[in-house]
């Protein structure tokens, strides 16, 4: 699939994961050792149960009287209490260590992910990044919270039980180990198949979810175009896939458990047979034989658990590789002494860019924006407007030529300074989930409520914000109050005002806004740009008409440049567009 080939974000190697985990563990070393000690001691004390029960059996078998039972029973009470206390300690310590490491890792991940160059995120598609921060972090989190402690506990119990059986008599250990080859073979068989089959199941679940979202979200469109039957069939195809895979999975899992049942029988029969032989031989008491059998029966649960959890461990490791991969990305190189712009002049010299070698989408662009000037870019799709906007904002590195802001090239300024110099609003609309004020404060963390309100006032958004139930405190974004496209764009412009950069590049979409909304946004953009050098991609010619300068791009080159009036008078491409727009030779005065 094309999605897979686009996965350009790094995935860490096993060695690298180990190194990172060791690094994360270092500050918690003492606590980790204590956790391990508690778990081992807990499992060991639990193992005393079976021999104590065996002791009771022996007491009974040797007819020592009913009161002789009391001693081992009291010891059983002590074991129960000690085991409980150690379990509390062990689990709490393991969680503390594991959760702290996980928190550290996810914070590092988010910091690195947000620090990735935009160019790189756009190449990889943000979907990959999002799935890492949600699905992968959750997978590892669940493993840390649930699978790892259970796995460790079960493994310890198994190891210590085997030791315990060897202490009773080494031949019991040999008998118990007869089950191991079957268990190993089963585990290998299981792990070989489980990865692909679960991945397939997740994929089918995702496809079904997507189809339902598609159908439900587009129900109006489905009705308008009479597509109900097609969509019903699509939903059914997807859900049949899900059912088929679910049935495959249960068949697979029951076979897995079936094989383990076989191993259980072989083990328990062997242990009983050895017990029979040793008792007959006089080497062991009947109590010892009972203890060995009880030991082995109690292993069924932990063994199943360890083998079943191997699969979770496997997928958690894969997720971990994807998280560490990003958390490990080296931060971008920054110039040692970044150049600082002296003013807000923007100059491009012989600027060119190609996404694919030999296919320039922008070529030889020379442009000069005086401080505070507003320049509108006009041209058909594919003319290079967005590319030019991105080059000026420092998102892409130019293939040829340079961009200078305030006399310093963007390269000499480095990303940190560039971000303080130029703000960019792209076609991507995103409202950050949470209180509206918090969304705005991303642009200026120390802004007072008054400053926020002032910024909202500039973009004509104050009125509707005040009309919201809780004003600035209203929870917006995903899961909160849903803003209209126009409101979301106004919010983006308000952030621009708050961020207060000397240069602003606007390539915002008025696409979904409708024509009335577009007008509101045009006015808001004009106010937001006041006092800044502004480069804007014009979607409506009215935007161009009010700009200080209009630049017409065609096939990556500047073909016309001048004021609206000059260009209309010149009778070139721009004039032709304008006349198609206004349907009049005698041009009406655009109101501004």
């Amino acid at each position, binding site marked *: 699939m094309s999605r897979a080939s686009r996965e350009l974000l790094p995935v860490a190697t096993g060695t690298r994961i180990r190194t990172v985990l060791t690094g994360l563990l270092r500050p918690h070393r003492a606590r980790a050792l204590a956790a391990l000690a508690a778990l081992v001691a807990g499992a060991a004390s639990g193992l005393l*149960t079976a021999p104590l029960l065996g002791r009771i059996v022996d007491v009974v078998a040797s007819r020592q009287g009913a009161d002789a039972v009391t001693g081992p*029973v009291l010891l059983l009470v002590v074991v129960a209490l000690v085991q409980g206390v150690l379990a509390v300690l062990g689990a709490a310590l393991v969680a*503390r260590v594991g959760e702290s490491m996980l928190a550290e890792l996810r914070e590092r991940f988010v910091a690195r992910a947000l620090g990735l160059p935009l160019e790189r995120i756009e190449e990889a598609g*943000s979907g990959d990044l999002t799935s890492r921060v949600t699905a992968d972090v959750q997978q590892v989190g669940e493993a840390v919270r649930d699978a790892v402690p259970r796995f460790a506990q079960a493994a310890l119990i198994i190891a210590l039980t085997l030791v315990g059986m060897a202490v009773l008599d080494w031949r019991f250990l040999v008998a118990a180990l007869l089950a191991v080859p079957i268990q190993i073979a089963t585990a290998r068989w299981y792990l070989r198949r489980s990865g692909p089959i679960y991945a397939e199941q997740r994929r089918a679940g995702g496809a079904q979810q997507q189809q339902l979202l598609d159908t439900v979200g*587009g129900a109006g469109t489905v009705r*308008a175009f009479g597509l109900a039957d097609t969509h019903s069939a699509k939903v059914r195809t997807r859900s049949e896939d899900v059912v088929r895979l679910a049935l495959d999975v249960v068949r697979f899992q029951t076979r897995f458990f079936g094989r383990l049942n076989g191993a259980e029988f072989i083990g328990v029969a062997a242990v009983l047979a050895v017990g029979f032989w040793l008792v007959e031989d006089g080497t062991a008491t009947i109590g010892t034989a009972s203890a060995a059998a009880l030991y082995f029966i109690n292993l069924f649960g932990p063994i199943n658990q360890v083998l079943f959890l191997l699969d979770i461990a496997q997928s958690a490791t894969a997720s971990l590789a994807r998280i560490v991969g990003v958390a490990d990305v080296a931060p971008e190189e920054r110039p040692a002494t970044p150049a600082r712009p002296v003013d807000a002049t923007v100059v491009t010299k012989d600027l060119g860019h190609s996404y694919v070698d030999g296919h320039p989408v922008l070529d030889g662009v020379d442009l000069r924006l005086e401080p505070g000037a507003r320049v509108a870019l006009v041209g058909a*799709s594919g003319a290079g407007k967005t590319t030019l906007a991105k080059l000026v904002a420092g998102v892409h590195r130019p293939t040829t030529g340079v961009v200078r802001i305030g006399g310093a090239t963007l390269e000499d300024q480095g990303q940190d300074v560039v971000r303080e110099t130029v703000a960019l609003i792209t076609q991507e609309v995103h409202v950050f989930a949470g209180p509206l004020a918090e969304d705005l404060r991303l642009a200026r963390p120390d802004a007072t409520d008054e400053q926020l309100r002032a910024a909202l006032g500039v973009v004509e958004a104050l009125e509707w914000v005040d009309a919201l139930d809780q004003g600035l405190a209203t929870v917006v974004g995903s899961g909160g109050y849903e803003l209209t496209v126009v409101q979301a764009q106004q919010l983006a412009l308000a952030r621009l005002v708050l961020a207060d950069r000397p240069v602003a590049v606007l390539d915002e979409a008025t696409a979904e806004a409708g024509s009335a909304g577009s007008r509101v946004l045009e006015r808001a953009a004009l106010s937001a740009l006041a006092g800044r050098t502004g480069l804007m991609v014009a*979607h409506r010619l009215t935007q161009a008409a009010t700009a200080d300068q209009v630049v017409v791009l065609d096939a990556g080159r500047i073909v016309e440049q001048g004021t609206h009036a000059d260009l209309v008078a010149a009778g070139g491409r721009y004039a032709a567009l304008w006349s198609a727009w206004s349907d009049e030779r005698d041009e009406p005065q655009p*109101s501004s």
Partner: protein
Amino acid sequence: MTPQVITGRAVLLDSIRHHRRQLVTASVLLCGHQGGEALVPVLVGVVIDRAVGTGDTASLLFWLAVLGLDFLLLSLCYRFGARKAWQADVRADQRMRHAVADRVLHPGGGAEAGRLPGALTSIAVADAKRVGVLNFVLPLGVAGLAALVVATVSLLWISLPLGLLILLGSPPLLYVVHLLGKPLERRSGPEQERAAQASGVAADLVAGVRVLKGIGAEPAAVRRYTATSRDALGATLRATGAQARYSGSVLAVNGLFLALVALVGGRLAAEGSITVGGLVSAVGLAQFLLGPLEIFGYVNARFAQARASAARIAEVRSAAPAVTGGRDVLPADGPGRLTLRGLRSTAGQDPVDLDIAAGETVGLVADPATATGLLAVLGREQEPAAGTVELDGIDLTRVAPAAARAAVLVATHDARLFSGTVLDNIRAGLPPDTGGDVAERAMRAAQADQVAEALPDGEHTEIAEQGSSLSGGQRQRVALARALAVGAATRAPVLVLHDPTTAVDTVTEARIAAGLRAIRGGRTTLVLTSSPALLATVDRVVVLDGARRAEGSHAELLRADAGYRELVLS
């Protein structure tokens, strides 16, 4: 025709009843499994009594063979029982999902009113699953009961007093465990929420990374996430602390109960009222019994969840339809004359009267509220509050909704694209045997051919979810081509377009205006827009701006009407 009203209880019962055969089979098989499991400790005790204790080899071989048979039985019973139960589960789940999807797709609409797509999808997926899972836990519960019976009989057979102690002691034991878990339950809800919130914040910030970078807000975002993450860590640690105390207590309580059983059993064995093997079996059974008893708690919890989910499913399925239709039939090849009389989409609005002649193209400049209401009524998404819409003299509300929509195709500007290729989307509304030239002409007219050209696989490029891999302008052109294709192929008499070019650049918009004119020539078309480029090419422009009405050609109105100029050019 109209969706039936149904209760949550009915949804639940129907789901179980529909799969009763599988459920009975699964229950019988799983009973076999649980019974077999219960027999394992009993048989181990027997081996110790009859073979290890006596040294009788024949007896050892015989009882080991019995044990082997028991393992075979329990393993096979589990294998096929679990499969059957699981089958009933996923099939029930699927059936429920289809019912929800079908209700959403019902021509009467109305199911998605007041519900976000995500919430509806979650009802179709998560709630359906919770109801379906009952079909899995029901046989488990029955089997748990069977295991309880087998274990009880075995225990009472080994020793009456010891059996009674274990049987009467286990429920209070579980009750104590339940009480210990109470604070945990209370705590875990909010804690989990906090943890989920951290993940949500991270996803949200990553999704908005371009916006953050545009204003240099990454450091602020990282600081915010770190604070949320630390908060979540604290919450998780408190929850795991409680969890650890809980599981530790459970372990201790179980251990103490076992000690009690050992004490009583040991004394009974010492007094000779039970055998040594009987003691071993009883201890094993005491441990085993906790399993089935826990199953009951689990089944109970699932039932509570399923009831809530079934209620939500029932609510969607019973949603009132947004529109109903009549039995009138539209003429097959009507000329396409559209007449609006005193039309109000909502009660407070100014009435709209509009006549569109057959084959005429009208540009409509309307305020947003009027436009939205008009589109909903014309598209039969909503009943008019007053007045009528007639197509060739037939009231659209008296026609089946699907037929009305086929005759008057409304393409709103927020129309969705669906997963599939660009061409799949454009051909979506066409009969399958339509020739390729129709889609091609529509693509040319909407300038969607330019979109295809810019994509890696041309018109065969797959579109990501809801068209998110396309830019706004590309999406808009593909959606327009889809509408034009339907109009061209099926001779839908009337096409209503809403802001079809807001996201495309001015150069392309001018080309689309020309293309639209060419492909719709002589066919009734209504374009709701304020784009001068489109308005300049229509036969007639009508202004419905609040109470203000005006009419004429674009050029006339520009010259004569300052208000119009303000509306479309500012």
